[in-house]
Structure formats: C-alpha cells, structure tokens
C-alpha cells in the first residue's frame, strides 16, 4: 500500500446515543502506518464507541470513515459485510461463542467469506482449516483445538479471540480493551501477539487501552481522547504529564 493511501481515514465522526448529547464530537484520525496505535482516555469518553463505529456495530450519526476506498458509514447489506470482514475485532471480554470448539471459533473468522449453507455444514475449505491450525499454533493453543471455548482461561480465550480476528484476513485490527480483564503478565503477552500479527500482516492495530505504561511500551502512535474529542495524537514519547492531566483530569494518580 502506498504511503499516499491511508489504511483508514476518519473524518468528522459524530455519534449521539441521545439526540443533542453527542459522545463523539467530531473525530478526525488518519492512519497511514502499520503497527499498534493506542487510544487512551477515561472511561465513558467514547473509545469503545469509536471502534464500534469503524466496523458499524454502532451506527455513526455523522461523518465519514474511508476504508478500502469506500465510505463505511454509507455501506449497507452485502457491501457492509464485505468491508466488515476485513476489519478484525478483538473484544474486552473475548466474546467467544462458548459452546463451540476452539477451532470452530477461529474458523468463524471466515464466515464473511462463505455462504451460511456451507458454514452450517462446517464445509470450510482445506486452506481455511490449515490457516486456522497455523494460527492456533502461533498463539500456542493447538492442543486445545477441539475443546469447548468455555473451558479455557481468560488469557487463552483472548488468544483465540485474536486468532479469530486474524483469520478474517483483516486490513486493520481493532482491539477494545483487550487486556483489561487479564493479569499484567498475560496482558503483555496479548499485546505482543497483537504487535506480532500487525507486523506480519503489515496492518495497523487500533487498541483501546487503560494502561498508559503498557500503551507507551507497544504503541508507535498514541491518540488521547477526552470528552469525545481527540486531544493528543502523536508519538508515545511526546506525551507528557500535562497531556495526561488533560486527558484524564486531576494529577494525584500520576505518581
């Protein structure tokens, strides 16, 4: 992809759940580089809403999201599903289908590419099955392939969640607080996985994250949000205590 063409271009994005009470107040973000981009900000400032607007799990109120030369905000029906399958999403609470096996969960990443009839008969192509097992190898869960997803621990579930997202052959990864439900060590491992897949696929990974230090460690770029607006957008080195005060408010937590 040439540098002139962005992976993702968000222009004037607005979202109001209640009319007259916007949660996103005009977001402009252009993403031209691969790698992890961390979005930090206090709870309730619209980070999750922003990510869910990108794959239209939430309907934006106004603005444009240019992705793969199309405006995601305008896409409907089949066109929307085709765009969506190139957007891999990782969730805070993993959102695996608990009663399906681990390998089935990974293969659900291909549902956007096949008919429901084929999917129902589990008629996945040999290539998809190979890719799914390779991904399970990559996240270190091959021996759990046939186990039910609800038998896994939190960290293992999140690995499956990442494998599912990568299975979609994404052009961008979105991760909504992927480490918030995990212990510090596992959180780092999950961030390493996201970093690795973003590198391998040469795609950007937009990661909502609470932990500023973890964000600094992995992100190539950080976006600070406060009150529904972007208040910082730049390198992790450039983010100062002043910026953090602006983003989160107060200063007693800055030890």
């Amino acid at each position: 992809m040439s540098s002139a063409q962005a992976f993702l271009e968000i222009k004037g994005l607005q979202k109001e759940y209640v009319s007259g009470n916007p949660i996103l107040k005009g977001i402009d973000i252009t993403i031209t580089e691969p790698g992890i981009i961390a979005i930090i900000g206090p709870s309730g400032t619209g980070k999750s809403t922003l990510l869910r607007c990108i794959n239209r799990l939430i309907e934006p109120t106004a603005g444009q999201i240019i992705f793969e030369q199309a405006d995601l905000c305008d896409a409907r029906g089949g066109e929307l599903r085709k765009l969506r399958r190139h957007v891999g999403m990782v969730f805070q609470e993993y959102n695996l289908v608990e009663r399906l096996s681990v390998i089935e969960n990974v293969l659900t990443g291909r549902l956007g590419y096949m008919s429901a009839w084929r999917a129902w008969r589990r008629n996945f192509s040999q290539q998809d099955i190979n890719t799914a097992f390779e991904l399970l190898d990559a996240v270190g869960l091959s021996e759990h392939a046939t186990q039910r997803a609800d038998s896994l621990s939190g960290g293992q579930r999140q690995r499956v969640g990442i494998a599912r997202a990568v299975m979609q052959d994404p052009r961008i990864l979105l991760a909504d607080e992927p480490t918030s439900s995990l212990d510090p060590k596992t959180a780092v491992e999950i961030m390493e996985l996201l970093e690795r897949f973003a590198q391998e696929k040469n795609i950007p990974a937009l990661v909502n994250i609470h932990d500023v230090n973890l964000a600094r460690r992995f992100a190539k770029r950080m976006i600070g949000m406060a009150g529904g607006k972007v208040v910082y957008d730049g390198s992790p080195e450039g983010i100062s205590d002043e910026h953090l005060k602006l983003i989160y408010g107060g200063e007693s937590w800055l030890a």
Partner: protein
Amino acid sequence: MAGVDSGTSAARPNPFARNWFVTGIWLLLAGYLVYSVNALGLSWERISTGMGFAGNLLDKMFPPNFSRWELLLGGLIESLEIAVIASFFGILVSLFLGLFAARNMMSGWVSSPVRALIALCRTFHPVIIAILFVKSVGFGALAGILTLVVASIGFIAKLFAEAIEEISLKQVEAIRATGASFVSVVLFAVMPQVFSRFLGFATYQLDSNLRNSTMVGIVGAGGLGGTLFSAFQRFDYDFVAAILIVIIALIMFGEFLSNLVRRIFK
C-alpha cells in the same frame, strides 16, 4: 447515639404490622371458596354416592380385555404416527417462528405479529382446535396432526423465543463483526447458545404430543382416542381398561425416548 437499651427514643413504626388490605384479600378468597363448594352442591353424601359408582366401574374394568388387540394396535400405531409427524412439523415451524418472535433479533414490525400468531395458537385448548379441524378437514388423522402442530407452535415457539431473548449478545456482536450474514450469525452465535434448551423443549413437546394424540381421537381426529370413546359408549369397560393400560405404556415409552435423546446430546 441510640443505645440498645435507650428508653427515650421515639417509637418507630413496626415493619411487621398487619396489612389489613392483604388480610382482606385472603379472607375474600376463602369466602369465595366456601361459596363455590355450596353453589356446586358438593356434600359428603354426593361424594360417597359417587365413590360407590366408581367402585362399580372398577369391578367391570377388571380383568382388562385384550381380545380385540388388532383394533387396539391399529389405534396405537395411528396415535404414534400422529404424534411423531405433528412433533416434526410443529418443532420445525416453531424454530422459525421462535426466531422471528425474539425481540432481540427482530424489529418490532416482525416480532409483534409473530408473537400475536403464537399467542393465538395457544389461546384454545387442543380439544377445541381438534373439533375445529375435524369440522374443516374432516374426520381422521389429518385433523389430529394439524391440531397437534398448532398446539406445539403455541407452546414451544414461545419457549424458543424466550430462550433466544436470554442469550448473550456479546457472542452475537463478535460474529457480526466478522462480516457474517444474518443466517450465519443465527447458526454460529444464536443456535450454539440455545441448542440444548431447544432440545429439552422439543423432547418435552414430543412427550406432550404423545399424550394429546390419544385425546384428539375422542372428537374424531384419529388415533387411540376414538377407540377409547366408542368402547366407553358401548359400556365395554374391560376393553376400556385395556386401552388405558396401553396408553400408560405409550406414555412411558415416550418418557424413555426423551431421556434417551437427552442423554445422547448431553
């Protein structure tokens, strides 16, 4: 600070004071019960004469008479067929209606009319539906099958819908995010969450249809019920006893089947 033994604090309202409104409702209910017993002329005499007749009937029923076993077997097979066919189609239709009636899957424009249809199916007792079908499609098994299909829809489509309304939407969200079509979302995010409960409802309905398939015959909609009714009318009480024993066997067989299904899909 209010000490435990402080005699000076003001009296607090007793939270366990008698609620005269509730007491009144209980008294009213008891009064209505007494009135009903009187209105229907229930007395010890009436009960004891009734019991006398019952003893008489039991005398005539034993020993059960299986000499007309061909008639019995024919009715039994027809009942079983009615129950199985009606369960199959009833469950199939209910799967779709249940999905369309689930308010978390469908907009109100779809779910409200479907819910109304399901409620309509549940409005009438199967006996009334059976009479309507006998009058409209004629005597025989077809009327029985249609009756039990309607009864099945009224019952399990509602249970299916409620099961779907209780699923975790997080899993649905994740599958939608992969770009899956609506049908794929249903197959991969909804069905896995509700399948075992659906199976429970479906076997329960098969059980219930077996029971009801012996009843629809009484109004002429095919099956063992017809045989039973004519035996009653001809005062063949020993044959009646034989039929009742066969029905008990049929129901126990149904119980055995549903246990088997549940064990297989555990």
